């Protein structure tokens, strides 16, 4: 845990987790099958969109999310800006409900995280449906949602790691 009272270093709570999300996305894109099954493909930056909004409001956070979204768009071969919008929608929802989460337990935070994931993926689902005139496979969307929700332990770790680091935001 950081020293109380010290200002948060953006490199610690923004840059390093963003780098970890990028590395995670690249590692899980290796074309390999285990027992005939492909590797999962969670949206790693979704955990950051939620955690950063919970830890503290920040001017840099949205722009880091935009950069992560652009990386996903380029790496996954999608339309530029779509994942950025998705992450920012999740960030906005979490930011608006931040005061409601204060003092609540993990279950409430988990529910908010699921809501943020549903909003983010739902936005991409809607955009893909409009652009492609074709509804993406719902089961595939649900699987990606499940894997993304499965990143909740990382959300808890990040939140515990940094939320008390700046007493102004307790």
């Amino acid at each position, binding site marked *: 845990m950081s020293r109380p009272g010290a200002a948060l270093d953006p490199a610690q709570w923004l840059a390093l987790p963003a780098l970890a999300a990028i590395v995670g996305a690249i590692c899980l894109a290796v074309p390999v099958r285990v027992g005939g099954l492909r590797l999962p493909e969670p949206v790693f930056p979704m955990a950051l969109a939620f955690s950063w909004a919970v830890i503290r409001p920040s001017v840099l956070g949205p722009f880091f999310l935009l950069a992560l979204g652009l990386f996903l768009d*380029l790496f*996954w071969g999608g339309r530029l800006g779509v994942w950025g919008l998705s992450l920012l929608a999740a960030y906005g929802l979490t930011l608006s409900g931040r005061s409601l989460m204060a003092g609540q337990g993990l279950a409430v935070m988990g529910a908010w995280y699921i809501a943020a994931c549903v909003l983010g993926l739902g936005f991409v689902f809607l955009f893909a449906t409009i652009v492609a005139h074709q509804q993406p496979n719902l089961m595939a969307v649900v699987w990606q949602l499940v894997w993304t929700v499965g990143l909740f332990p990382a959300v808890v770790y990040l939140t515990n790691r940094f939320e008390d680091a700046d007493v102004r935001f307790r």
Partner: protein
Amino acid sequence: MAYRDSPFQALKAPLTWAAAVAGVVAGLIALGLALTDHRSATGPYGAVRGEFDEVMEPVTSALYAPVRWAASAADFAGGYFFAVSENRRLKAELDDMRRWRDAAVALKSENERFEALLKLRTEPPVPMVTGRAVSDVRGPFSDARLLDVGAAAGVKVGNPVMSENGVVGRIVGVARSASRVLLLTDVESRTPVLINRNNARAILTGDGGANPRLEFVRGQNAVQDGDVVLTSGDGGLYPRGLPVGVAARDFRGVWRVRLYSDRGAIDFVRVLLFDDFSQAVDTAALAASSLPPLTAAEQADLNAQRAAAEKPPPPPAVEAPLAPKGAGFVSSAPPPRPMVPITAPSARAPDPAPKKAQPSDPTLAPPPPAANALGSPQP
């Protein structure tokens, strides 16, 4: 003074608002990108995509190397321990293949005779390059692969890609030493296909799942369970007859295709350096006129029309009535002549008694020679 009582407490609300404003600004940037971009190398950000793929290719290739080594080691160990059973299997397969070879030789000979008899113009062989998929992007919204061959190997946007089992997709982005394949399963993929049994046409539509849908199937009950699906070649995107998969009905009754390429991991692939019809055709030769020569009667008719066109148009028989006073601006030009469609002589049906052109009749006279931009008649 305690830190909590300090004036910094007041920073909380402004920071929240600042974060919200930053989020809106970032969102507007993302929205602008999303509305102006599309997923192809010819889009406004195609160069950015190409450079990104060029950078990511060695990274993902290096990450994939240990996996490849492990797979090779597993293959080696499996080959060592299961050599006898594999030998038996291969012998049985060889016997089967020999029968197929004899049948193929006979069919090939027969086919060549038919082609010679019918003077059939067959498609030329398609050159190809081999590449390796170094990244595997999955998910409901995008399904693509990054290959380690690019423009330096002759790969172009639109080239079809096949694995050892069947069609994988086609190239949508090319950098110097990397290229991106849009798979058949991608939500934006549309592939014209045919049912091998009855030549029925359909469109294979990806939806992000493992088995793309068959849509716009022509004909009643045109598809049956187990039908082999091939590329139709319609539209010139793919050559005709590439193996795609097998038709199957899902639990909702929607026809889908179990892809041949899904039988194994997509590792080594072949990029067909296939130019579609619009690229392969000689457009100059296509645009050249190939009308048949005129008959004597048609030539005479044409000469009469040309002679009539060289004469000045006769003055109008009745002058245009003057406009009443106060009617404003009135043009002094003669009233426009009615337009008559002129039929090309070679396209007309033969007329046993061709009517002579009447230069005095404005409805039958050909129009005057067209004037160029400067107003002078063209020769």
